[in-house]
């Protein structure tokens, strides 16, 4: 156990930083520090293709598929330098961090050849279709149907909370492929091209006036018979594996964003004098402690050689960051006072901290509510009895 990096690691860091800074201060200066994910999608695509052209798009993947076989520490370093350089959030986060590793784990050679190059090159943006209006956090309650007809999977049903579907080329879904099946059985993991008449996307406006999420409707939408990962009926197992990739090194890039947010709160407190309020000072100290502990928690999670073991740091990570960010939003508003409640934008658009205050209410819900997270921690982490399911 040690802090700090070896000379080789520092050299790798310099290489990352140099390349990223040249890009962000040169050809891509126009999207440096771009917040969120919805602005300037075409420039983001250009940037992700540029990453790919220099083999920086998926460095943790095998070289065979466009990666660099980078170690965890190297991935940590790249993620940190990526954020530090002001490079924008990745449109294809889902493709690179979730779909790719799952295809690498479960795909046939043909499937790897079909999907991975597009992800690696930045040409194919992916999104995730797990939640449904009547299923919420309960994947076993999925109702969307798919049946094999004339060499195609034909799908009918609805997904919800599909972030970035409007910019995506592919969506992976969990669908019920065994008619009459219930619960975890009879589900399959299908990969579906979005640009087809059977797929309709409707944006969902959120509490903060933006629309990052969508409803996605499937009306006789189709994909090839071979666009299935694992065997028919294996969907639950594949989905669970995919979700385990969610706690990868990208968490550290996310933390760089949190750092920026906390720094903005600190700057606001210094600017308006609330930095001298002992109550605000305590809360800023707590936020600072929480962010530092998130960092070392993430490093513990990534350093855990035996990733299959139940890992307390990994199990508790989602609720930690979501709660931290929700609390930071409230702290930000208390620092700003009433002045934080107004904006001079046209329409309902607020500056970063007020937007954080509003949007962070979603953080504790999507990707498994805080309540679901506590169930998982209690059941998988502490070995307490499972919640009984009611009659469906």
């Amino acid at each position, binding site marked *: 156990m040690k802090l700090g990096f070896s000379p080789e690691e520092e050299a790798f860091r310099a290489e990352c930083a140099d390349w990223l800074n040249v890009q962000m201060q040169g050809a891509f200066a126009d999207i440096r520090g771009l917040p969120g994910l919805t602005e300037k999608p075409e420039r983001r695509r250009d940037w992700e293709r540029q990453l790919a052209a220099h083999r920086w798009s998926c460095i943790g993947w095998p070289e065979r598929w466009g990666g660099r076989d980078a170690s965890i520490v190297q991935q940590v370093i790249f993620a940190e330098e990526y954020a530090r350089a002001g490079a924008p959030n990745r449109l294809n986060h889902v493709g690179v961090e979730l779909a790719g590793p799952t295809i690498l784990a479960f795909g046939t050679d043909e499937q790897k050849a079909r999907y991975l190059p597009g992800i690696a090159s930045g040409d194919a943006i992916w999104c995730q279709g797990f939640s449904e209006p009547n299923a919420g956090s309960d994947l076993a309650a999925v109702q969307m149907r798919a049946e094999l007809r004339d060499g195609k999977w034909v799908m009918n049903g609805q997904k919800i909370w599909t972030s970035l579907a409007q910019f995506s080329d592919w969506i992976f879904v969990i669908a019920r492929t065994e008619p009459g099946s219930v619960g975890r059985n009879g589900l399959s993991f299908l990969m579906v091209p979005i640009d087809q008449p059977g797929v309709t996307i409707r944006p969902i406006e959120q509490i903060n006036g933006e629309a990052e999420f969508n409803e996605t409707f499937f009306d006789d939408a189709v994909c090839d018979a071979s666009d299935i990962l694992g065997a028919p009926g294996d969907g639950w197992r594949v989905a669970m594996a995919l979700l385990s990739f969610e706690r990868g090194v990208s968490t550290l890039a996310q933390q760089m964003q949190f750092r920026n947010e906390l720094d903005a709160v600190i700057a606001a407190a210094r600017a308006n004098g609330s930095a001298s309020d002992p109550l605000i000072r305590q809360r800023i100290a707590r936020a600072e402690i929480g962010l530092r502990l998130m960092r070392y928690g993430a490093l513990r999670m990534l350093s855990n050689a035996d990733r299959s073991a139940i890992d307390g740091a990994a199990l508790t990570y989602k609720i930690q960051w979501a709660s931290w960010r929700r609390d930071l939003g409230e702290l930000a508003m*208390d620092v700003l006072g009433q002045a934080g409640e*107004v904006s001079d934008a046209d329409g309902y658009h*607020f500056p970063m901290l007020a937007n954080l*205050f509003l949007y962070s*209410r979603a953080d504790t819900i999507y990707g498994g509510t805080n309540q679901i997270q*506590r169930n998982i921690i209690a059941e998988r982490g502490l070995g307490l009895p499972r919640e009984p*399911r009611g009659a469906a």
Partner: protein
Amino acid sequence: MDFALSDEQRMIADTAREFFAEQATSARTRAAMAGDGIDRSLWASFCGEMGFAGVFVPEHAGGVGLGMIEFACVAEAAGGQVAAIPLLGNAMGLAALLADGGEQSAGQIEALVAGSAIAAVATSDQLTVSGERLSGDAGLVAHGAIADLLLVIASSEAWLVRSSDAGVIITPHATIDQTRPLATVRFDEAVATPLGANAATAALSTGLLCLAAEALGGAQAALDRTVAFSLERRQFGRQIGSFQAYKHRLADRAIEIEQARSAVYWAACALDSESVEAEIALPAAKSFCADAFFRAAADMIQLHGGIGFTWEHDAHLFFKRARSIQTLLGSGDLHRERIAALVLDRAA
């Protein structure tokens, strides 16, 4: 000593609740949010047919002649529907004018009771007075952009300013709580009528009670709606309201709301009986109820899951109103510090 609502008070509370439930619908409130933050037709009925604007105004001054308990019942009902009306400014303006009691007030009281004039309140310590003219930054004013009359409170003095005066500069802002939009008000030698010595205190007391009661109503509504949702919505094959974590969280909200209710009635009684307890009851009620509302509204979002943070669902209306109540007329920390000063700093 009696701490239950009388039958008449209960009737007023029921009438107000029905009025807002029927009239202050989500669709109408959202139309007001997209506009200037007031449902004018609702406000007209509130002042006109219902006579609610004059609930605590003496009959000789054109009001209903009841007291602060009844006013709290009305404000609670308005808060329960997040109604887009300028109630806070109206009540504070009336309280100030009644305290002033001067001849020139009578006409303005009448206008505010009838709803033919809208009042808003600026509190600021950045103003300079010269003769009867005010200059300087009056800060952010709720419903400031639609007000006819501005009640200005500075250092425990109160003035009245007509917003149509040439020296009044009002800049509206997009505001998180669109049912109570804020506007920046500046004065440049604006003509100001000074009000009597008790006007500022009366207005602030009424304002704190108004916010506390609105928050109580909002918190109760947020809880009720979440309970109803939890009985309809099923997940994991069960009503989600059958999950104990859900139940206990709602129980915690119910506990706070019961305390909030005691706080509002206590503060209203203290004002009605002109008790010295008001100096602790009002900051207690405002800070406690605002926080209880905020938690109830935050839990409303959280416990509705994904739908809870969409624009389409009403949860965000409650959440944003709760936040604006927390900051209006001073933060919770500020009011608790006032109580601490009363408890800790007076001679033993």
